[in-house]
Structures are given as C-alpha cells and as structure tokens.
C-alpha cells in the first residue's frame, strides 16, 4: 500500500476537526429541543470521579467534600475569550458540575494567541460552539449549556438567575456594569477578571458583605480612555493568568472557603516586580448606587447609554472632519498612487501617523511615519516636509481613519497647510476595498 503523504494526513485531520464542530452543533441543537435534564445533587462520588479527580481529592482544602461541592455547583462564564477560555477549561477539568457559557462572537484568527478554547478549525464558527467542542473533548462529566446571545438588560437576569456563581470574562465596560448589577439584584457572587496589554485585575464582588464593582468604580471610564484588546493589544498569557485565577476563586467560593477571606483586589502586571500586588477592599459602600442602603439602581438600566459605548471592544469610528472634501476614499488614493508610480504627476506626501510599533507591522509604499503624538515635538520636521511639497497634497493615513483626521486638523489649523486630506477608513479599509493582500491586524 502506498504511504499517504504528510500533507494529505494533515488535510484529513483538518476536515475531521471541522466535522467534530458540526457534530457538536447537531448535539447542541438536539439538546435545545429536549427538556433540561439537570443533574441532581449527589452526595457521593462515583468510582470514575474518584479516579479522575484523585490528585485533587488528596488536597485537604478540597477533599471528597469539596469535590462534591464542585460537582453540585453551577457556574456561568460570560465571555469565552482570553479570560473565559482558561477559566472555563479549568472549571470543567476540575469537576464543576454545570457550566453555562455566554458569547455572541465568532472565532477569528486574531483570537487564537490568547483564547485557548478556540482552534484554527473553529475560525468562522460561533465561539460558544467552539468552546463547547473543546470542553466536551476534555470532560464528559461537565454538563454545559450555551447562550449564543449578547447579554443585555432584557435577558441578563434570566440567564444569570440559574447559576450559583458568575464569572465576568467580558471585554467591555458596559457589560461589566450590566453583569455587576444583575448579580447584585440576584444576590449572586461575581468573580471579575480583566486584562489588557500587559496588565490585569481580579476581584470577587458581591460576596459576604464585600463591595460590588460599582462600589469601587462608580463612574464608567470615558469611551476614548478605555483601552481594549483590539485597539491596544494584549500579550496572550496575560488574560490566561487572570482567567486561571478566576477559576481558582470559583473553587474557593464553591467549596465555602472564600468566607474566611477579607475582600481584596489583585493587580497583575507583566512589567512590574513583583508581578502581583494586592489592595485591601472595604465592605459594601453604603452610598453605592446599586448595593448601597438607598439604591438608585433597582432594576437593570441602559448600560450602553450609561457608559457611552457599546457592549463590544470595537474601535470607535470618529467623525472629526466635518467637511467631506477634507477626506478621500481608499479607491481615490489608489488612483493617486498609480499616477505617482507611473511618474505622470500625483506628487504628494503620504503621512502615516500611527505609532512606530504599528508602522513596523505593515505600511504602504513611500509612506513617511510621524506618529500623531509626536507632532508637537517633531513640529519642525513636519513643517519642512509639508513646505517642501510646493502645494502638493498631504494624505494622512492611520489604522482605522480616526487619528488621521486629527492629523489633518493639526496640519490645516496649526501649520496652515490647506492641501491636506485624510484617507477615510485607514489601512483597514485599504485592505478591505483596495488590496486584499495587504496585511490586516
């Protein structure tokens, strides 16, 4: 028999992995039709459970009693991304009996460096399907239920209400306040984690007289000040560290150990020594809007309005340049580029105003990089570059067409150079509309 080629075997594996996802989807659809057959609380471990969790049973802090408590606990993980991936995996692995997963997103390649539940094969599939596929591979003992919905004020209390513990593994402020309020109103402890760039935070809220998220952060961050992973990046392992610690806090809550601890907030940073610091928290704040003595929030509110930003980590689309003639489309800039390349006019300066890190990832040919936040310090250089154009146009470009509008304003208003335009939509639009081969990040 002829030996199969490695590449053929790899292709075969890839298609089997896709098939696995499709079978899981069929199971989910059938389960959704059936009446929920929630496992009954049990007071003894099966032989299979004893074998499987033996290394954990040996720990006095868990033991048989603790393992049974994990087995009889239900946990809702909101978000199956960088935080939710390791958290849900460890919860399933450690023997949490019932796990709910909420996510409304689809797996994208740019998720894979940190969202370890998801795989190359699951790109394009829903995150909850991808998550449940990975979890069912790991454990058939963990009963999972998925919610392929965007958590909002209309559904949050219904979904959260069925669980003992909630894990906030989301990526935006609006959903954080929503989950907090829903947990306070339902009396459910909340294990909150967050991570961006190189830093993370971990706190258990609404437990044993301790504070809620609003007690600590009564004012939501301004949308522009709010850093998110899609804009500012995140080191893969950073949400991994926090997500694992969230799973650990769930174990403490489920086994009843957490009541012996004073409330605290854990701060983690890749760039600090030591990496971890802890801040003692006080109890519930009597003046808190939701958990205080005279709460003003007595039902779920409009969190998008409260935070001034939507329930996602998408970049805002600014519209700073009111005059549409101060902007040109990507298609139009391509024509300028063609003329310039052919040497028949089209003289211009292409000014890339992203920071150096982003400029190094990819750039359009002949672009000059002066980051927007260096305009003041490099003003002389900028002025010389503009003046040497003899009236030829400056085209400012950035990643999404936001900073480039600020640059156009600066050059028009501060330098008084009128021939300055923004490439609308930036390099993201360029990749989408003009050059599919241009790298997307």
């Amino acid at each position, binding site marked *: 028999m002829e030996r199969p080629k490695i590449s053929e075997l790899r292709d075969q594996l890839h298609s089997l992995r896709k098939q696995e996802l499709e079978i899981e989807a069929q199971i989910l659809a059938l389960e959704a039709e059936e009446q929920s057959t929630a496992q009954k609380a049990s007071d003894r471990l099966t032989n299979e459970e004893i074998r499987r969790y033996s290394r954990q049973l040996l720990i006095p802090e868990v033991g048989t009693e603790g393992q049974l408590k994990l087995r009889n606990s239900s946990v809702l993980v909101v978000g199956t991304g960088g935080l939710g991936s390791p958290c849900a995996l460890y919860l399933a692995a450690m023997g949490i009996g019932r796990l709910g997963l909420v996510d409304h997103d689809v797996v994208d390649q740019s998720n894979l460096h940190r969202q370890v539940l998801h795989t190359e094969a699951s790109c394009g599939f829903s995150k909850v399907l991808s998550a449940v596929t990975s979890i069912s591979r790991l454990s058939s003992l963990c009963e999972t239920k998925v919610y392929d919905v965007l958590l909002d004020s209309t559904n949050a209390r219904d979904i959260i209400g069925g669980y003992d513990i909630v894990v906030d593994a989301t990526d935006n402020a609006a959903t954080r306040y929503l989950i907090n309020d829903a947990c306070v109103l339902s009396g459910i402890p909340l294990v909150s984690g*967050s991570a*961006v760039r190189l*830093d993370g*935070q971990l706190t258990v809220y609404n437990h044993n007289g301790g504070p809620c998220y609003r007690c*600590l952060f009564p004012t939501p961050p301004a949308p522009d*000040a709010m850093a998110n992973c899609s804009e500012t990046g995140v080191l893969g392992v950073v949400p991994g560290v926090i997500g694992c610690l969230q799973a650990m806090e769930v174990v403490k809550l489920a086994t009843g150990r957490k009541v012996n601890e004073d409330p605290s907030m854990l701060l983690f*940073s890749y760039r600090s*020594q030591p990496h971890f610091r802890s*801040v003692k928290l006080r109890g519930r704040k009597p003046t808190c809007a939701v958990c205080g003595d005279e709460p003003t929030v007595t039902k779920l509110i409009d969190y998008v309005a409260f935070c001034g930003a939507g329930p996602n980590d998408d970049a805002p689309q600014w519209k700073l340049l009111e005059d549409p003639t101060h902007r040109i489309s990507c298609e139009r800039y391509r024509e300028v580029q063609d003329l310039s390349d052919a040497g028949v006019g089209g003289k211009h300066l292409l000014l890339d105003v992203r920071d150096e890190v982003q400029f190094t990832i990819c750039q359009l040919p002949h672009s000059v990089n002066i980051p927007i936040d260096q305009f003041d310090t490099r003003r002389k250089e900028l002025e010389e570059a503009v003046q040497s154009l003899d009236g030829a146009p400056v085209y400012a470009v950035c990643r999404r067409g936001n900073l480039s509008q600020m640059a156009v304003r600066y050059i028009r208003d501060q330098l008084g150079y009128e021939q300055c335009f923004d490439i609308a939509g930036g390099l993201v639009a360029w990749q989408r509309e003009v050059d599919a081969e241009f790298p997307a990040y």
Partner: protein
Amino acid sequence: MVSVKVLYFASARDAAKNLEYETVTLSEDTGPRMTSVVDAITRRHPGLAAVLQTAAFSHNQVYCSGDDLEDIQVKDGDEIGIIPPVSGG
C-alpha cells in the same frame, strides 16, 4: 517635607511615562492630603488627568475612592497606588 511612593497601574503607568513607581515630595510641612499627591502627579504627567477621573486609589495597600482623597492624610514613607479600571479581556 513629606515623601511618598506612588505606584502606577495599567493605563496610569502608560500616562506616567511608563514609570512603575516614583517618589513624590510634597512641600507642605503639616498634614498633606491625598489630594496634594494627586495634584503633584497631575502636574508632572498632564496625561494622567483623564485617567484619574475614573481611577480607584490605594493608600498603604488599602482601597480608597476619589471622594476620600480630601480626608486622607499622608505621612512620610506612605505608598499610594493609582488604579484605573481595566475593562478588556
């Protein structure tokens, strides 16, 4: 003179020239408050102003809110943390 150590977390660190911490010396001889510290660091790093609006704080590893700053007296050698909320994940 009262010198305190200020720790910058997450986006506060980015706004403070990537400093993990720095020493801030206050000129007041008697009873400087946390507000004096916050004023001093905002003068040093104007970019912090936006971060401070929604940040939490710590005084000797104990949480305090922006509303408490006026009431908390700082002593020589105290440690103050600037803790903006991290929202991502």
